[in-house]
């Protein structure tokens, strides 16, 4: 009986380890590939070099795409965070029946298949002349990021004692000031989480950008998608490694921000 149990245990652990390897190996394999010296994608690479990093940093096209992506991602986080915090605050503070429906409207960008979002935004932009523009990309990403910011901040506000803000107001502060000085510092980790979510989502967004970006204002993801579809260029491995390292750093930041919250 005992023996049978431990065999089952070993099989279970083995299975879980296999699944975890399935999850993590493909992400890690890109790293050695990016340092390969060869055009061919043999693994492990026969010799190592930095040529694919040079190909990325030395190519004006890739660089301008990277710049577009960074501008769009920063602007998205800067716009989506205050708008999202305001909306989350309203959802939390009001018990009006309409809030339930408005909250669902704010979740729609997560619910609607992204191809439909892309087709819709493409149509609106074609009418308003926003196609192939940076502000166009930013607004689309703000819309897609809002559910993440609202969800993160609503969760943060949920654990916050509202009476503290009321005390500040009873002492004569107006609503805005009491929010800024009393509430915001205490929900900072969740606001930061929301902002990072917004940033990563904008950096990672591909589908909508495929429809609405073009010309000089193509983000990195669109260039990568086109490159991947046409031929497998090892430069992608270098970019992939940089992106993975970047998102890993951001996730670490988020974990650290959460740890700072008083339990």
């Amino acid at each position, binding site marked *: 009986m005992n023996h049978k149990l431990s065999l089952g245990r070993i099989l279970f652990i083995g299975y879980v380890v296999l699944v975890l390897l399935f999850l993590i190996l493909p992400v890690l394999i890109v790293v050695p590939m990016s340092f390969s010296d060869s055009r061919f994608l043999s693994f492990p690479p026969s010799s190592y070099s930095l040529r694919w990093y040079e190909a990325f940093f030395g190519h004006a096209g890739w660089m301008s795409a990277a710049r577009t992506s960074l501008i769009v991602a920063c602007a998205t986080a800067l716009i989506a965070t205050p708008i999202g915090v305001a*909306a989350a605050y309203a959802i939390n503070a009001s018990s009006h029946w309409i809030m339930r429906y408005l909250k669902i409207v704010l979740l729609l960008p997560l619910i609607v298949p992204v191809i439909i979002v892309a087709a*819709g935004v493409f149509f609106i932009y074609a009418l308003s002349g926003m196609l192939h523009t940076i502000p166009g990309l930013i607004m689309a990403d703000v819309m897609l990021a809002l559910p993440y910011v609202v969800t993160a901040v609503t969760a943060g506000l949920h654990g916050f004692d509202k009476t503290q803000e009321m005390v500040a107001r009873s002492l004569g502060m107006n609503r805005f000031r009491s929010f800024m000085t009393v509430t915001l510092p205490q929900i900072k980790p969740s606001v930061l989480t929301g902002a990072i979510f917004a940033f990563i989502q904008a950096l990672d967004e591909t589908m909508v950008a495929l429809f609405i970006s073009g010309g000089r204002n193509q983000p990195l993801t669109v260039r990568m998608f086109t490159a991947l579809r046409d031929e497998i260029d090892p430069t992608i491995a270098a970019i992939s490694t940089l992106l993975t390292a970047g998102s890993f750093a951001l996730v670490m930041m988020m974990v650290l921000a959460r740890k700072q919250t008083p339990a």
Partner: protein
Amino acid sequence: MLVLMLPAILVVFTLLVVPMGWLFWQSLYAEGGFSLEHYRRIFSEGIYWNTFALTFRISFIVTLLALLMGYPVAYAASILPQRWAMLVLALVILPFWTSVLVRAYAWLILLQRSGVVNQTLMASGITDAPLPLVHNELGTIIATVHILLPFMVLPLYATMQKIPYDLMQAGASLGGSPLHVFLRVFLPLSMSGVLAGMTLVFVLCLGFYITPELMGGGRTVMASMLVSRNIQLYSDWGAASAVSVVLLVCVLAIFYVVGRLISLEKILGAK
């Protein structure tokens, strides 16, 4: 309070709700008036049927595989000591935060004719010639499972974490074998997580575009690719919007039915 909501609502309204209304209207409009022509077409032409059948088949397979792979991982994370549980979760979350394009690229390298997987299979004598693992439906399914697996594990873990350990001990002290306790106590209590995870994976898979486009080799055409092709290649908004509406109705119907059983926030919480 409504004033604070206004900017966010305005953005979602102009960029999502209004164009969706327009798509809906467009799908019912042909030859200068109201018509069901576009729907008649997509329900009578083989290519549309095949695409929807393929989309649903892939979504079912992916959801099932993700459940079979994700449940034990979430279970392990929920019973392991804190330290090991964090490691398991970190291994699930890191790929979750890696770009879909990066992962598609990794799978293209791994699964190609001379890729690591084929080399290993041939070296171990399982196969003599390289297997066609990519640029087809199989490659699409493998990469899609990889991308959607965290969406299965995270809601499952969130549910399992809340199952009191006392209950399992009570079951064991009443004489149940570990397997029996798992089947009669733990499994039923984890069902809301199973439902949340399956819904999320299935619905996301229905709308997948990037992965089948890159891994499918042009032959694995899923519903969202029909929308894209109709717009970008043929400028056929009628057909594109009819396909969009059918896709959207499927997704909303699934959310509605599942939403009767568990809350929407629970499903979307992990996303």
